[in-house]
């Protein structure tokens, strides 16, 4: 593809990476409005000019769903923003979402040639820009749909894996029903990721776009309870099932005092605010412990921990502290999230591991007893293993603690589908290429197979599943 970029490559490389306009840190820590404000058309054009349009286009290979990045950048350069959005939609049904929450630094941008000598192209910002432009014009370029195949697919879970599979399957002409246990569609995009990173209105709009593709959404259906996988394939008449239930079973620390009032799992803390809008109590009925003026400690170093600690600040916490057992280098959270958290006033207590929650005689949390850690030899994850320093116990005050150390596979579907193989951690076993499970007609992908990962990896699994389900529905071979 030729480019309409008027600049020679050397000049392109002189343009600095455009900065994302943000709400000032001092203001945003007081509200739930979005932190990143998005690029203007002028900034987007300026950024797009930096693209080298290299033949190798590593960016494309770095994208879990294979967005044709070079092509959509080119469309930005010629000013066809709607065309650019439609180009992304060919491979990514949720561009306004991934433009906000993808860890681009590890994916497309991590592969960008520009990054070898300076800063990579801001592909995420540009994706977000065209997706927002498209939303604001109201002219969403839905991809074309193949003629109806007469085949029906049930998708369990309406998070990123489920939505992405639903979009691809609907485009291939299959009739898709998405089953969701909660009362709103979107899974972790609704209950997990906070408003200040991903406004819920955007999720609603993307779900509406999928509805317009003919996808049916059913809330309040807990597969494994309301209906089983066998019933979906039997009397309900579905030809295939895709399990995309996510990793919804919180891991606790199993240390003394974890039952104290004021100790939350990140899932509960975030669900109360994001799904149930407890930050707007009493206009909304679901309460959350009043964090105003309190010390809040969040245990963990991932994106969920960052979401929880920044939520605590916005709920009025006097101090909001990340307690992490390794050092900052090993933190799995995105660099941007850590940076935003620090700017907003989050404190970081690293190389510290809680060994007990401390409470008063009324059963309320008063603090954490922690242990100093030191880093030893690398473990299986390649990160240096934290080891306790003997005799180093110390206490920090906390009236609220949020445990954000990961999830296990929620067993509701597996335990009611006897011929579905799981691994010792409770995740479903699926073929890495076809996402086929041990049960005919049943596919699984996303966090319920891999364990907790990212939105885009789940979407990638959804795409892969859609491809494999489409093949299975066409040839009937297992």
């Amino acid at each position, binding site marked *: 593809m030729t480019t309409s970029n008027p600049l020679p490559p050397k000049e392109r490389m002189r343009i600095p990476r455009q900065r994302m306009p943000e709400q000032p840190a001092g203001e945003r820590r007081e509200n739930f409005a979005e932190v990143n404000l998005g690029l203007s058309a002028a900034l987007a054009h300026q950024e797009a000019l930096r693209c080298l349009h290299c033949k190798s286009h590593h960016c494309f290979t770095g994208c879990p769903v294979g967005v044709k990045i070079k092509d959509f950048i080119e469309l930005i350069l010629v000013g066809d923003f709607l065309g650019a959005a439609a180009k992304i939609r060919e491979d990514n049904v949720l561009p306004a979402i991934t433009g906000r929450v993808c860890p681009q630094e590890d994916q497309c941008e991590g592969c960008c040639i520009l990054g070898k000598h300076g800063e990579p192209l801001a592909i995420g910002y540009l994706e977000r820009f065209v997706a927002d432009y498209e939303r604001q014009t109201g002219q969403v370029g839905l991809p074309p749909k193949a003629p109806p195949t007469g085949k029906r697919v049930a998708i369990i879970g309406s998070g990123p894996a489920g939505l992405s599979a639903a979009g691809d399957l609907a485009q291939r002409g299959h009739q898709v029903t998405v089953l969701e*246990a909660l009362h709103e569609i979107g899974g972790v995009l609704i209950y997990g990721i906070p408003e200040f990173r991903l406004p819920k209105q955007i999720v609603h709009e993307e779900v509406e776009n999928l509805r317009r593709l003919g996808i049916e959404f059913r809330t309040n259906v*807990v597969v494994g309870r309301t209906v089983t996988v066998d019933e979906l394939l039997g009397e309900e008449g579905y030809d295939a099932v895709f399990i995309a239930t996510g990793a919804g079973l919180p891991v606790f620390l199993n240390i003394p005092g*974890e*039952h104290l009032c004021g100790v939350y799992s990140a899932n509960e803390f975030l669900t109360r605010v994001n799904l149930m809008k407890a930050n707007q109590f*009493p206009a909304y*009925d679901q*309460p959350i412990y009043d964090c105003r003026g309190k010390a809040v400690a969040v245990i963990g170093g991932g994106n969920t921990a960052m979401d929880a600690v920044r939520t605590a600040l916005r709920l009025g916490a006097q101090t909001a502290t990340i307690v992490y057992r390794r050092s900052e280098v090993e933190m799995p959270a995105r660099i941007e999230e850590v940076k935003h958290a620090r700017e907003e006033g989050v404190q970081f207590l690293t190389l510290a591991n809680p060994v007990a929650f401390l409470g008063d005689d009324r*059963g309320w949390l008063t603090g954490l007893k922690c242990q100093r850690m030191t880093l030893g030899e690398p473990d299986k994850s390649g990160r240096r293993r934290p080891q306790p320093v003997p005799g180093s116990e110390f206490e920090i005050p906390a009236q609220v603690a949020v445990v954000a150390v990961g999830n296990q596979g*929620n067993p509701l579907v597996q335990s009611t589908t006897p011929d579905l193989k799981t691994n010792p951690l409770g995740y479903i076993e699926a073929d890495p290429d076809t996402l086929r499970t041990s049960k005919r007609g049943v596919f699984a992908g996303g966090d319920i197979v891999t364990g907790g990962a990212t939105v885009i990896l789940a979407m990638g699994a959804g795409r892969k599943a859609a491809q494999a389900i489409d093949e299975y529905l066409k040839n009937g071979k297992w």
Partner: protein
Amino acid sequence: MFPIVEARWLAPEVKLFRLRAPQIARKRQAGQFVIVRVHDHGERIPLTIADSDGDTITIIVQGVGKTTRLLNSLETGQAVPDVVGPLGRPSEINYFGTVVVIGGGLGTAIAYPTAKALKFVGNRVLSIIGARTRGLVILEQEMRAISDEVFVTTDDGSYGEKGFVTDRLRTLVSGDSPPDLVLAIGPIPMMRAVAEVTRPRGIKTVVSLNPIMVDGTGMCGGCRVVVGGKALFACVDGPEFDAHQVDFQILATRNAMYREAEQRALAELQAHAADPHVCRLTQSHPEILRSADSPT
């Protein structure tokens, strides 16, 4: 939307609803519950399924906080926006021999379906219905229909025997043929007291716990209870547990976690309801007056 096909008061603040919910009705077993949300800004609360019949499920609601009172303001022909279930593990229904079923207050509504199922498989069912006063005794006829014997106790002696359910239980367990199983469902102090009566005699005792829940699918962990020293999730591991293993103190403490917020929400609801001129309640929650069948 889940249409209400029947709504009637059983006692002051206690109302029975039959909801059309075919998928749940077909699936539900004794001991399971649903989570409901009453309006767009509503919280999610768990309610035990008291019965089912064809396409409908029965829930019995005691108006104590904002959500339960809003629910109890609904009438036949209206609808509940969100009902999900059946959730939780079903009760263990086996032939045990003689079973004592104890329902304290609203607990009778929760115990009833399990008592009925235990009777159905051939157990001898002795039921104790406890209430503060005569007007709060619920489901007596229903319990009589599925029990070999029914004892009613009231705290004030206005009906049945004067005293607590544990007074009657003590008599039943100290005879020559003590029961093989005791099922006790009611306020936490009652369940704890029952556990202490049966513990020294080693009688298997089951309680149904009612911790605060959000999603009801194991996702949030808010409903964790300490049983035998281990943290378990009432929504997926329960709600029924071995009474002799449950830490009732932790349950009671955790259930009081939002008491201030709950009182505030209720006070605001009552302030709205008391205003004779403008019904702000229906302005803030218009859907509660929306008929299930109306095209709006």
